[in-house]
């Protein structure tokens, strides 16, 4: 899952650095992701993982790192499985 998230980030986050150089808990906003780019990342993730982020997840803290995105996606998948 982390590799796929990295793929979406590299396509949409428009980071000034290579996403492969970032750790799972590196802050993507500090790395240069703008709020506008973050919306494209969200859309890219919804498309790639065929999910929809509910409003409660649509906030900065959920998308601030690869790890936090993975946690949100896992939570959505668990919910879908129940």
């Amino acid at each position, binding site marked *: 899952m982390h590799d796929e998230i990295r793929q979406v980030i590299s396509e949409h986050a428009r980071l*000034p650095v290579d996403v492969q150089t970032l750790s799972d808990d590196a802050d993507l*906003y*500090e*790395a*240069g*992701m*703008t*709020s*506008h780019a973050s*919306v494209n990342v*969200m*859309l890219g993730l*919804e498309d790639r993982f065929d999910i*929809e*982020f*509910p*409003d*409660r997840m*649509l*906030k*900065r*803290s959920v998308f601030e790192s690869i790890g936090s995105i993975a946690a949100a996606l896992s939570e959505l998948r668990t919910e879908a499985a129940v």
Partner: protein
Amino acid sequence: MNVSVDQDQAFIDDVHVIAEEVAAKNADAVDRDARFPVETIAALREKQALSAFVPGELGGAGVSFEAIAGACYELGRHCGASAMVFAMHQIQVATIVRHLDDAPWFEDYLRELVGEQRLIASVTSEVGTGGDMARSIASVEPAGDGLGRFEKQAPTVSYGAYADDLLTTLRRSPDAEPGDQVCVLTHKGQHTLEPTGSWDPLGMRGTCSPGNVVRAELPLEQILPTQFARVMNESMVPISHILWSHLWLGISSDAFDRARTFVRAAAKRKPGEQLPAAIRLSELMSELSLLRAEVHSGLREFVEASAEDRSRLSEMATILRFNNLKIAASEQAPRVCQGALGVCGIVGFKNDTPFSVGRHLRDTMSACLMVANERIHQTNASLLLIAKEV
């Protein structure tokens, strides 16, 4: 509970008296001469109104946020510029109160604010960022010995020359990305303001907001500990939109009251006659009530979200909601004032009658420029792509 209700009421009563007896008397001179409303701010200081939102444990009156919004409305009814200065100050106070995260320097600062009734101005806009408060160019540069310094080109600094302190947004460090920002508080004496332009605007003339180059050197403990992105979403932006919209509602309500007084006087002169102006006044009332409903519901939703779980304010649907408040109120307020002009006709157009609404119209015309609505629409357009229930 009763204590806080009493405190809120006492505070609102004080501001109401100041608005009627001080702000109203000086409003025309403040507007005509584009001068700072010194009398109103002095009267507010005397009643400890500048620190009203500081919690009791730090020495303030600890009034509710609703009371602060109500005070902006009261002042707005009598002098838009006074109300705007007061609102902008309270935005900074509320931001610090909500985000000081037990930082000892900021706790001490709030105690000083209570004792000295210090006035805070903000330096958030910056030349070259296209009006995007979420990005900075200037940064905190290390200056050795636990000190930092900065130089920021600000296109406007409202009442900067009259403020005791400045709250400035900056990049965290010289190598930080534009969105990695912090808030920095500096005292007069730590910063200098070099004006880069004049101040002769259409409205809100008493806010005295020319461009400035701001330079400062400060101890690093004067950097607010919370990351600005959070401060912005959870406090600074929604609070700005709520307090501004309350004072715009105040200005519009006064314009409506003037129109109503005009119609009543006309009706008394011609008893029994159907007056076209009376119909227009009725139409205007529905425009005003739309504005009032939006402003009041915005306040209620903010207070609820703050009480339940403040992080909800960071959700995109919530950001959209308070952006919408700003856009709707900033467009509706001048519409109401122009409607009042339509009711009063020439006596409303003249600047020296009891029905003059020129200042109201000009003051509210600044609303769509304070963080340009165009800019907010850009943000909303992007958030709308992903937010679900709006």
